[in-house]
């Protein structure tokens, strides 16, 4: 049976699961920022694209309710969403002209006290052949052909002549491309935003990347998640990882609830 036929069978099941009695539409919007002010490709933003998975709303009692993401054939599918806040123009050269600033889905009705999600593609889907993948995993600019797997996050920001840039993805992987057994540095980022409420945007503030640069840094500090790369030792702590060991130690500092 073809994959499409499988999907056709799954769709009614998804509808049944999604249309429970207390089911409500869900939407979460993202905005790019730099040091607390909006950022765009006419000035300081150079790139901002990322995969969102494991999305759940947090209830007042701390319980997590999974948001089920629909499949729209481009930005969402397989429980994964791709957010693209660059437009391919201006300072965002090498980007794509189309974009997507939100994740939509459905979740059980009820009071929302926060949001939780993961920046990353789940391991089971991360290392398959990208040429056979369904949206949103069919975007070549988000794939890392030499490292195997996807770039979970591409973020780049400029301050005059200085540029900080991160391509985050699993590194130190073992096995063979399309048959990866595991990765020493999974590099998925868990984001918890206790203050988030429906209707409020999530700000992705790239300012902390620039703040992390040492005063004597050269024009470009670019981290490709290389476990031994000094640029990553500088920039990955912003995402909550220890710069040397790669362990997730602290809360990430890029995503926060917009004010």
């Amino acid at each position: 049976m073809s994959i499409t036929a499988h999907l056709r069978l799954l769709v009614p099941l998804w509808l049944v699961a999604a249309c429970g009695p207390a089911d409500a539409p869900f939407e979460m919007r993202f905005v790019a920022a730099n040091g607390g002010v909006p950022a765009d490709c006419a000035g300081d933003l150079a790139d901002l694209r990322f995969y969102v998975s494991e999305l759940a709303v947090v209830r007042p009692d701390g319980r997590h309710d999974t948001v089920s993401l629909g499949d729209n054939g481009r930005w969402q599918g397989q429980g994964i969403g791709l957010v693209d806040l660059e437009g391919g123009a201006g300072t965002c050269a090498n980007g794509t002209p189309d974009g997507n600033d939100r994740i939509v889905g459905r979740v059980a009705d009820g009071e929302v006290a926060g949001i939780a999600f993961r920046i990353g593609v789940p391991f089971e889907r991360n290392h398959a052949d990208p040429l056979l993948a369904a949206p949103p995993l069919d975007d070549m600019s988000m794939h890392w052909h030499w490292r195997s797997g996807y770039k979970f996050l591409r973020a780049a920001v400029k301050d005059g002549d200085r540029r900080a840039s991160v391509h985050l993805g699993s590194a130190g992987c073992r096995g063979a491309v399309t048959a990866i057994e595991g990765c020493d540095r999974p590099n998925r980022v868990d984001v918890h935003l206790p203050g988030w409420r429906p209707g409020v945007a999530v700000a992705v503030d790239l300012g902390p990347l620039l703040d992390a640069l040492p005063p004597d840094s050269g024009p470009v500090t670019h981290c490709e998640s290389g476990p031994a790369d000094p640029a990553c030792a500088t920039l990955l702590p912003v995402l909550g990882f220890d710069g040397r060991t790669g362990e997730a130690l602290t809360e990430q500092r890029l995503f926060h609830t917009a004010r």
Partner: protein
Amino acid sequence: MRRGWALALAVVVLAAGTWLWWNGRAPAYDWGIDARIPAPPVPVDNPMSVAKVELGRRLFYDRRLSVNGTMACATCHLQALAFTDGRPVSVGATGEAHPRGAMSLVNVAYASRLTWANNLLSRIEDQALIPLFSEHPVEMGMNGREDAIADLLREDPVYQRSVANVFPRDEDPYSIINAVHAIAAFVRSIVSFDSPYDAFLRGDPSALSPAAQRGLDLFFSERFECFHCHGGFNFTDSSTHENATIESVGFHNNGLYNLDGEGAYPPDSTGLIDLTGQRRDMGRFKAPSLRNVAVTAPYMHDGSLATLDDVLDHYAAGGRVVESGPLAGDGRRSPFKSEFVRGFELTDAERADLLAFLHALTDERVLTDERWSDPF
């Protein structure tokens, strides 16, 4: 009696038809190599065929597969140079220099791992995506232009016919994966074992000069250690074939750099450590095949040794000393250096013999054969 003949004829026709059908189903691909040499492995999802190789050949030489129409795969892989480009490091479509040089594609079908230092990459189908789509540095620059590749296949009259013919079962055959599979099949088809050394092995003692024969003995001697990393039928320890029972993969630090006294390589090209993050992998690169090595200068991953003489000097010294500048350091004393790079004494006569042998690895046929030439 007549009915007997008719029955016999029917049986013969049926048998012949079955035979034709069976063979037509999966025609064996003719690699054009000596029967004593095993065929290379082929991924089950990308079987070889003459038509697919021919389609891949056209794509390999097609500059429309780059962001600005200036660059084809063949731009960095020139047949006359055994599919290398003669530059220390290659330059992408937008002018960006790659930190490493283009590797030869001759017999790459037998490589157990692809590119200079990647322990994950074993299929050409996966490797081909790097030059097409990579951004750091930009090579062909097709990132974000996936549709342009599909459109090219769909709209160019030659590709339109050829793609439909090669991939008849696909609902929409005009896809990147089919383009990549065809290019991979073409690259995989570049196999050849026709150097003077091969003729010598096949029983023609006159194929190698006396100097080259002495050089052969030196090459395979424990004194010079060359064969440990550059051994086997393809002169590299990262080699495999259709009947291989064990996987052979090797990465080696040969003492080119030692920036900090602790073995550091220049940050833009540190070797296998770039993938693994393991300190022990600093400066470890794949030993490339030495077939056609006389035409693939300059040498090493970054082209930092200009001639084969320089390479012999490098190994005779047991590593390289860079006296000054940002790359200064004593590579001989790198803690990560291979145990086979120990240095040796080399007389002028021995040097001449080794060079004669290395030149005898040049396969004129693969450098000129029309099957792999530019179809445009």
